[in-house]
């Protein structure tokens, strides 16, 4: 649904608007994108990632166009709401009768497909560094009945980083895996010799 492409120039301006420190701006950007995704998912969107992409692209365009934005986070929320309303309207207009719908070629789910799916998981897990892999496994490790809230706090303390920094690292790993899986499912796993 990305109607407005994100250009490198617009992206740079957006980062600058989020924080003058580039590294922190990157973290803020990631958090903002995640917030949008959660927002659209909570609203019941089937493709929250696409809507989040569209929202950040439009936000970046607004900034590049010189629109005065006093509070980028509140503005982003307003923009996300607008895009959600637009998507609902678009959804309403996209009803197609069965007569107009093309026939779906029948494909049995077979073992090859399953094998390919697993190959994708394996391939994507290999893309993680040892450190990333250790972090994400520990993140989901739950001793006894610890709440995630407390467990994450302990993990962050153990690593000597803030809870926010821990979550951002986990976001990055998840995103990396999700992007890899999406790409692999679309194009198939890379051929191995």
């Amino acid at each position: 649904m990305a109607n407005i492409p994100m250009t490198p120039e617009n992206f740079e301006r957006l980062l600058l608007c989020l924080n003058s420190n580039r590294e922190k701006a990157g973290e803020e950007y990631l958090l903002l994108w995640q917030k949008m995704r959660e927002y659209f998912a909570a609203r019941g969107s089937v493709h929250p990632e696409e809507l989040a992409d569209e929202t950040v692209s439009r936000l970046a365009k607004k900034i590049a166009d010189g629109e005065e934005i006093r509070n980028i986070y509140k503005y982003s929320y307003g923009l996300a709401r607008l895009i959600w309303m637009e998507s609902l309207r678009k959804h309403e207009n996209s009803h197609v009768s069965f007569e107009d719908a093309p026939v779906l070629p029948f494909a049995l789910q077979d073992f090859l497909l399953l094998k390919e799916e697993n190959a994708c998981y394996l391939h994507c897990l290999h893309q993680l560094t040892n450190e990333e892999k250790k972090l994400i496994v520990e993140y989901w490790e739950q001793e006894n009945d610890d709440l995630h809230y407390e467990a994450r706090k302990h993990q962050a303390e153990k690593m000597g980083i803030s809870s926010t920094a821990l979550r951002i690292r986990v976001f990055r790993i998840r995103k990396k895996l999700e992007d890899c899986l999406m790409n692999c499912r679309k194009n198939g796993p890379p051929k191995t010799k």
Partner: protein
Amino acid sequence: MSDFPYNSERLTNYLLGKLPEPERERLEEDYFWDNEVFLALIDAKDQLISDYLNDKLQPEDRKRFEQHFLTSPGRKQEVELAASFRHSSLKSKRKPAVFSSITTPSQPLKAHGVWQAHKPLICVGIVILLFISGFMAIWLRSNSLVLPQPVEQPVSALSGLTTVSLSLRPTSLRSSKRNTTAEVGPETETVELYLEVSKEIFPTYQGSLFIRDSEKEEEVLSNDSLYATKSESGPPTVIWKLPADKLQVNDYRARLNGIAQDSAPIHIGNYDFEVRPPSPENSSQGK
């Protein structure tokens, strides 16, 4: 950033779609503005996923989780990944409760969107989990991380085909060439219905199965946690896995309704099919 009090119930209610609209909007505005609130929301989400995988959710919340929370392939994938990472880190004494509900995983499955059947999400999630766990065990071992738990199930054990599949269009549009007969033998465990729907994709679908032509229309099976899978080359399909032991030699009608967010079910179509014993031709070939 404000000192946000951790309020798991409010955040969980938001994720399950239980908050009233004004409170929902207030929370959304809060987490856009305040990173601490957002991170607390992520914690609540992770907790919810864990509770789901550990079978700790109340039946009503479990239903809401499947119907409201798992509306996108991304979230389903998130749960799959969480399940795989959790599983690889679990100590041998502690298995998720849901594991006990799976005895013989035997159905081949597809990437995403296949979360139905009798206990839809659990079954598919666990089958995927078993596969991933197997691969992860090898992978983590090869990368010097010791897994505390052995692989649950060899991959080869899942390759047996005990599933009969039918691709169906609504009765009003049915093509005469299309096969609508499911040949169910003693080895058949599942009859998979691929129900074509229009381009309109609802977050969830509700299926009801009836015996056709019976004087009194009696529901044989129902499932209100069905999902559509997208296809690049055609309309989306809702896949409904029916346990073969619930079916008899008879003529059936599957009725499909789309469930929009916060609104009444919308009728999508009726899909007729027949269940028959395997023909001698197929039986002799071992089909």
